C-alpha cells in the first residue's frame, strides 16, 4: 500500500528534477544535480546500499584481509592516537558517549570499522547499522580527521582488545 502511494510522488519528484536540470542546461548554467539512486529500497536498507556496502560500510575502504599475526608496534601507535582522539567517547568494556569497542570486530568487518573512523558523516547518514546506533546514542560520532595510516593503526589496536585476542581466563 505504502509503496503504491509513494511511487507516483517519486515520479513527480523525478519530473521536477528533470525540468530543473533541463532549465539549467538551457541557460548554460550549473551541472544538473545527480538524480536519486534508482535501486529498490526496503525499510532495512532505505539508502539502497549494495551488499558490499552493507557489510563493509561506505567510504574509502573496501573489503580487507588482515594478517593473522597482530602487528604489536602498529597497535601501540594506534593506542596512542586512540587515547588522544577517541578515548573521550569510547571505552572498551562499557557504554560511554559511544558504544564499547572491546568487541566491535565481532560485530563489524575491519573495513566497516575503518570507514566508520574515516567517513562517519556519510556512514551515519546512509548506513542502517550506524543509523541505528545513532538513534540509540543520540550523539553523532565526529570526524576526527584521521589519516588512513592512523585509522589502520587504531584498527590494529582494536584487534588487541577483542575477546579473541585475550584468551578468556
Amino acid at each position, binding site marked *: 500500500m505504502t509503496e503504491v*502511494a509513494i511511487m*507516483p*510522488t517519486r515520479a*513527480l*519528484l523525478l*519530473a*521536477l528534477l528533470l*525540468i*530543473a536540470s533541463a*532549465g*539549467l542546461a*538551457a*541557460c*548554460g*548554467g550549473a551541472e544538473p544535480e545527480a538524480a536519486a539512486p534508482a535501486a529498490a529500497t526496503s525499510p532495512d536498507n532505505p539508502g539502497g546500499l549494495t551488499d558490499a556496502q552493507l557489510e563493509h560500510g561506505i567510504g574509502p575502504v573496501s573489503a580487507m584481509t588482515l594478517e593473522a599475526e597482530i602487528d604489536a608496534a602498529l597497535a601501540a601507535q594506534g593506542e596512542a592516537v586512540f*587515547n*588522544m*582522539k577517541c*578515548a*573521550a*567517547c569510547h571505552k572498551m568494556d562499557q557504554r*560511554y*558517549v559511544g558504544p564499547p569497542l572491546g568487541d566491535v570486530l565481532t560485530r563489524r568487518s575491519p573495513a566497516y570499522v575503518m570507514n566508520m573512523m574515516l567517513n562517519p558523516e556519510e556512514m551515519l547518514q546512509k548506513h542502517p547499522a550506524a543509523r541505528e546506533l545513532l538513534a540509540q546514542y*543520540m*550523539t*553523532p560520532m*565526529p*570526524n*576526527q*580527521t*584521521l589519516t588512513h595510516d592512523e585509522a589502520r593503526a587504531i584498527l590494529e589496536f582494536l584487534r588487541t582488545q577483542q575477546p579473541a585476542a585475550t584468551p578468556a581466563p
Partner: protein
Amino acid sequence: MLNRPVFRITLGIAALVLAAVLVNACRTTGSAGLADGDAAQRVYVPPGQHDEFYAFMSGGFSGNLTVHGLPSGRLLKTVPVFSQFPENGWGYSEETKNMLMTSHGFVPWDDAHHPELSMTDGVPDGRWIFINGNNTPRVARIDLTTFETDEILEIPNSAGNHGSPFITPNSEYLVASTRFSVPVPQQDVSIDSYKQNFKGTLSFIRADRPGEMDVAFQILVPGYNYDLAHAGKGPSDGWMFFTSYNSEEANTLLEINASQNDKDFIAAVNWRRAEECVAGGAARTMPARYAHNHFDEAHIARHELKTEVTVLEPSDCPNLVYFLPTPKSPHGVDVDPTGEYIVAGGKLATVIPVHSFRKMIDAIENERFETVVDGIPVLQYEAIIAGEVENPGLGPLHTEFDGNGYAYTTAFISSEIVKWSLETFEVVDRIPVYYSVGHLMIPGGDSRRPWGKYLVALNKITKDRYLPTGPELAHAAQLIDISGDKMRLLLDFPTMGEPHYAQAIAADVIKDRQVKMYQLSENKNPYAVKGEGETRVERNGNEVHVYMSTIRSHFAPDNIEGIKVGDTVYFHVTNLEQDWDVPHGFAVLGANNAELLIMPGQTRTLVWKPERVGVFPFYCTDFCSALHQEMQGYVRVSPAGSDVPLAYGTGGTLTTASR
C-alpha cells in the same frame, strides 16, 4: 492516505513554478537588458555561494577589523585586534592577554584605521593584513590563514599613529608616521615651546618576518602633523610619500592656526638611501620603551619591552628627504598603478594636485629648490607638478585607481566621488554618496594591479540610510559598480565601528589557504591534554590548575571539589575535536573576565577567582550538538581552610588529586 493527492498537486504546482522561474532566469541572465540597472542582481550572491572578494574594513574605535564579502556586503567575521572581545575571550584568556600589553601597561582598546594587505611585487598576496592603532601607537599583523591577530608592535616617539601601516611593494617595510608631534624624547616642557622642542617621526617597521616585527629606523622630521602615506612602486619603488599639515607648527586652535599656509608638504623619503645611511653608521640609537607581542610556537602571546630605537636625522643623511609643496593641508597621498603619479588630497584645496615622480627626480638632480627647512630641501611646485584636476568636488581626501587609466577621488564636503582620467587630468564622471565620504576602496586599488570592478565608499555620516536605531547609527558603506563608463550605485550596507579605510582582495587568493583546525598532536601549550586520559586537577599553594578537555558533548572533568575561597583557579581547556567548525565554549558563573571559545585542537585558559562558598556551574557556550544543553559541570567551592579534598571526575566516582 487522504493527503497524498494534495501533496502530489502541490508538487505539480511547484514544478510549474520552478519551470517558470527558470525560463525567466534564462531571459534575464546573459541578455543585455539586465545590464541596465538591475542592481539587486549584481550584488545577489545566491544561498550557498561565495562572494567574489574579501573586504577588510577597519573597525575604527571598536579596535577591531571586520571582514565582509563583496559584492553582497555580508559580514563574515569580526577579528579582534586592539580590543578585548568577549565573544571568543580575545584579550581575556591567559594565552591572548599579553597581545594588548604596551609600555603603558594593558591597553585593551584602540582606534584602528587603515588595513593594509601584504604585497609581493606590488600586488596584494593575501599572506597578512596589517592595521594601525592610533591612540596608543601600535601596528598589528593579522594572519590570513587563521584570521587572527598574530603580532602587535608599539611605536616609540610617536603620538597618534595615523599615517600607518602603509607597505612597500615587497612588504619589506610598513611605515608609521606620527600625527601629533611631541617632544622627542618625551620631557616636561611647556606646550608653547612647541617649535623648539616638538618633533615628528617617520618610522619604518620590518614587516616581512612574522614574529620579528621591529622598528628598523625612525627619521626625525620637523614638528608638523603627519597624516597619511603610500609607497612608490615600479619606477618610484624605493620611495615613500608622507603627507603633512600644520607646517605652521601651531599647538592650539589648529582649525584656524594650521590652515594659514598656502601649501604644506608631502615628504618624499628615499628609504633605500635610509638603509644605506643606517648601514653606514649615520644613525644613532636612542633609549625608548615600546612593546612587542607575538604568539610563540605554543600559540601563547609573549610580551617583551624593547629599550632602544635607531634614529636617523635628515641632516646626517643627505638626499634622504625632500618636501613636495602641496596645497592645502593635504590628507591622502596615493600613487597610481604605474608609480609615476603622486596624487594628493588637499582637503581645503580647490584642485587635486598630481605630482610627477619623473619630474621630482629631475628637480632633485637640478636642485630646483624653493628653500631648505631643517636640512630638508623644498622642491619648486612648478618643477614637479604633472597637472591639477579642476573641479574635483569640495574637500578632496583620498584617491584609488582602477588599473584602466582612471582615478577616483572622494570629496568629503560635497559627498561625492569623482572619476578622472590619468591622461587628461579631467573629471569624466561623478556620483553622489551618502554622506560625507572619507576613504574609498577599490580591491587592490592602491596596488600595481587593481581589480577595477567595484568601489566601496566609506561614509562618515549615515542619517536616514537605514532604519533608525536611536542616536547611534552604524556607519554606511556604499558599493559602486565601476566596470562601465558611468559609476553606478549598487548597494548600501552598514558596517561596524568606524570603517575608516578598507582593503579587499579576490577571494581566490586566500580562500583555499584557510586553517580549518589545529592539530591536537602538535598542540604545544604546556597545559594541553592530549586525550581525556590526561585530564586532571592539580593544586600548587593557592593556585589550582584544571586540565580539562571538551568533546561533543561533555567536559572532563565535569565535577570538581576541593576548591577554596581565595584560590586562583586556572581552567586550561583543550578542545579534542578534530573537525572543522566545532569550537566549544567554556563559561563559569561569576567569572569576572569573559568566556572562552576554543577551536578544535587548541588550548585556552580562563582564570577564575571564586569569592563565595557554594556549588557553581560551568557550561559550553557554543551550541555544539544535540546534547549541547547537557554539556555542563559543577565546581564546589568550600571556605578557606576547609579540608574538603581536591577531587575530580566525569561520569563516575571522583578521583582525589595526587597533589
